[in-house]
């Protein structure tokens, strides 16, 4: 009986952990996705290779820093391959801001949003994910 109760408690802890973890991971990814979505879109310059993206660059670095802090927890339960893709997209976005390239900025921002959205969907507790 003792073993049964311990096992039942373990199962309850596991189920609880899995649900709470899914909720936390989704929340953290959503926060980052919202911050990325709120990044300002600059006016399209005449020469797309010489845009002023210094303001955006600062913001992206801030978002990335907060993402790095979240990553310590997220990486415990989310596939590292997916996380690496988002990391790469952050790096590309920061690079585009540094280079002041409007086209690259728009493209990598789009890819980052897509990557975060993909990550969020994958962490949701949904029938689609289970089956």
């Amino acid at each position, binding site marked *: 009986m003792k073993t049964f109760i311990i*096992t039942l408690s*373990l199962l309850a802890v596991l189920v609880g952990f899995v649900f709470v973890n899914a909720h936390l991971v989704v929340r953290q990814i959503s926060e980052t996705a919202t911050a990325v979505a709120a990044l300002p879109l600059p006016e399209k310059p005449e020469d797309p290779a010489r845009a002023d993206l210094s303001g955006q660059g600062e913001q992206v670095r801030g978002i990335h820093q907060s993402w790095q802090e979240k990553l310590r927890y997220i990486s415990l339960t*989310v596939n590292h391959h997916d996380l690496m893709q988002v990391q790469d997209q952050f790096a590309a976005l920061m690079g585009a801001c540094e280079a002041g390239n409007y086209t690259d900025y728009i*493209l990598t921002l789009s890819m980052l*949003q897509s*990557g975060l959205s993909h990550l969020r969907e994958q962490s949701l507790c949904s029938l689609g994910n*289970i089956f």
Partner: protein
Amino acid sequence: MDDRTPPPSAGVRSTLLTGNGTLCEKYTVRERNVPMIAIFFRALIIYITLMLTLRFMGKRQVGELEMSDLIGSLLLSEIAAMPIDDPDIPLLYALIPILFIMSMEIIITFSKTKLNFLKKIFESHPIFIIEQGVIREDQMRRMRISVEELLSECRQQGVVNLSDVRYAILEQNGKFSIIPNASKAPATPADLGIKSVDVGIMHSVILDGTIEKNALAKTGYTETQLHELCARYRCAVGDIFVLGIDDLGHITVVKKKTEREDT
């Protein structure tokens, strides 16, 4: 833009970041990795499916293991290999389902003893293939057992003629129990009117020069008494390969061979 990256066409570029989704979301087919929560539910679904599948496949598939043990072994080996094979998979991906399967295994085996309906779902009952000397063809068909297999099982248990079998029972673990007719069953001491003494089992209290404390406790000897016993055989504990004591106190001693004796 990097030369290696093909630039999007002007038409496509104008649609970037417009509407509800980004261009990437609309046109990229992504690799689908399974999240941990899905792994958890998948383990649950696969566990129950395997249990029911093996239940309906019949006893013969189960072999010597309990059905839940077999499923546990099948799943655990695969799950444990996941993070070893692929370093991109976090360790918790495997740990959670392993703990989950272990919990399910204990809960189901325990619940089966308490709840009858679970017992009916997850556990089969013995099937009589031969009952009071009569072969049950319907059960043979149901269990997909051929006459050759039945004969083979009988031969393996020392019965050469089907007419000598009183009962042939297919047990829950997939093994056969063959009970011969009384006239063909081996005679027991009781049949012959011989008084037999139950000597029980031999407890190996010394194995390769080491005292086995659990076995020693079962014999009622203390370590001091054991050392005295060894002295009676003119050797120390370390010189003994096996020393066994049965329930009636009979002692069996096998001394170690010295190197000189070996050569």
